[in-house]
């Protein structure tokens, strides 16, 4: 099986595909981290910002809609990732592996 792993690992198209995928994963992670830690840092250093009412005379403070927005954005981003993985990465990778296997018929099927 290691021969198959090596062939896949050294394949330039595989490298390109996985780099693209890693970029997506890490940038989405970065977005979530940035949003969440801005939220936490406001609570840590400037809680009065979240205490501001959303408009004059309202009891609802900015913290509440913003907090709910963090939850919604997290969900939407997971949806986006799943969509990209299903439509772009899975088919491309499967096709590539089929190619590699076809051009090296002596690879053992993994048990």
């Amino acid at each position, binding site marked *: 099986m290691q021969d198959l792993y090596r062939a896949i690992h050294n394949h330039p198209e595989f490298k390109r595909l996985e780099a693209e995928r890693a970029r997506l994963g890490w940038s989405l992670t970065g977005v979530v981290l940035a949003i969440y830690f801005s939220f936490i840092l406001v609570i840590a250093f400037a809680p009065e910002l979240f205490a501001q009412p959303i408009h004059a005379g309202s*009891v*609802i403070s900015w913290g509440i809609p913003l907090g709910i927005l963090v939850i919604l954005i997290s969900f939407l981003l*997971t949806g986006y990732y799943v969509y990209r993985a299903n439509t772009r990465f899975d088919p491309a990778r499967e096709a590539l592996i089929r190619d590699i296997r076809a051009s090296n018929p002596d690879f053992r099927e993994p048990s």
Partner: protein
Amino acid sequence: MIRASHLLLPLLLLVPAGSGLAAELEGARPVNYTAIAMFALFVFATLGITWWAARRTRTTKDFYAAGGSITGLQNGLAISGDFMSAASFLGISGLVFASGFDGLIYSIGFLVGWPIILFLLAERLRNLGKYTFADAVSYRLQALPIRSLAACGTLAVVLLYLIAQMVGAGQLIQVLFGLPYPVAVILVGLLMILYVTFGGMIATTWVQLIKAVLLLSGATFMAFMVLLHYGFSPEALFADAVRVHDSGRDIMAPGGLVSDPISAISLGLALMFGTAGLPHILMRFFTVGDAREARRSVFFATGFIGYFYILTFIIGFGAIVLVGTNPEFRDAAGDLLGGNNMAAVHLGEAVGGDIFLGFISAVAFATILAVVSGLTLSGASALSHDLYASVFRHGRVSERDEVRVSRIATIILGILAIGLGIVFQEQNVAYMVGLAFAIAASVNFPILFLSMYWRRLSTRGAAVGGFIGLATAVLCMLLGPTIWVDILGNDEAIFPYKHPALFSMSAAFISIALFSLLDRSRRAQDEQQAFDWQYVRSQTGIGAEGASKH
């Protein structure tokens, strides 16, 4: 299982009789038979499922991983079931009830771990592992030290998490049946042991699934009734809450819960990265057939959990106005009956009467039972699969033996959980779970994450650094305000912060990096070479356990 129902039947029949007496003795409210009937009905229904599943548990794979036969949507529901524990439902609504906005800090922290798991870990984990996350880490690292570390980390997390659930369940049973708290905790412990020893993962998965649906419906109903009361105007709800709450306007802003920046950041880190180190959650990625289904499970789980957290926020505020102002729910001293953790349960009675009270209590109880079972199961598999089968017997063990050991481990964990549940009675359950998250973020998460993303990670680095992370986290907790002052009764905490994650996570990552970089052994070089093969397998699923067979 026949033996089990013989044990259980007299136990449940005894409860109403004994509880009436206890209620009279303690001067609590009269026993609510409608609520209890609903409650008993539901508990028996879930036991029925366990029995059904028990007949289907034949192999080790069935016991730990439900035979890999669960779909993405089902698993997403089961994951959210695991996650919508006593901490989420009772704890967060209790926190919102007590301090308003602060509850949302926990909700958001619990939720944002999920996208991170999806983007960085879920698929790789599924492709590398078999039953536990230690399988994935020991793909290229030496099994013995890694499994020992993973087992210790898992047990620490599981125990803390268990305590929180036991406290929630104990208080629930105490309120509903008027039973003394210790009796309630023992009852929960016994039921939990029955669940896990007979059903294994298939049973807990099904219970989680059904319970997730019921809990989501119940919480939706409660939030709907609260909003209906205010003509669907959040403004009116919040205005009323501010008017009646002791803290007034302060409940709309971050407040006492995270009083200093260090605690806020520390809590934030624990909640965000802790999810990615929770053994009973990571275990759920092996119950699906392949990486694609693992991915879908996270998507569904994030949706359900996010929706649920928005509901608990409304429920908490609803409890402030509908429960907090009603003297019926207060004891002589003016405290909430059963403690703040019970805010959601009382709200159930306030908006839905006795029948709904019985329903929501049963759902909360089943929630706890199912979460506790999932936790115990992952604790048990840490002991039987990671320690007993792999470390002590070097993999030369029959499936029969391994399942037997994990059943014994379940019983031991159950007894421990009962004892600790009694000791930690006064703690908010969401906070207790926060501590479990801190350990998960300081031990399991660093080694899992680095094993997948850092080529230079060596066995020595992971083992030594992981233990340093674990020791730092446990020590900070023991010397911190909760245990050192509240439980042990000392005057001043040696470690001043309630949340250790900032310190213990840093300790773990720095020492893992240091000991890996200094490791110049031959083995460390082989491990770096194996990183490439691990990478291919984790990305493609070629050679993955159970993949493509389902």
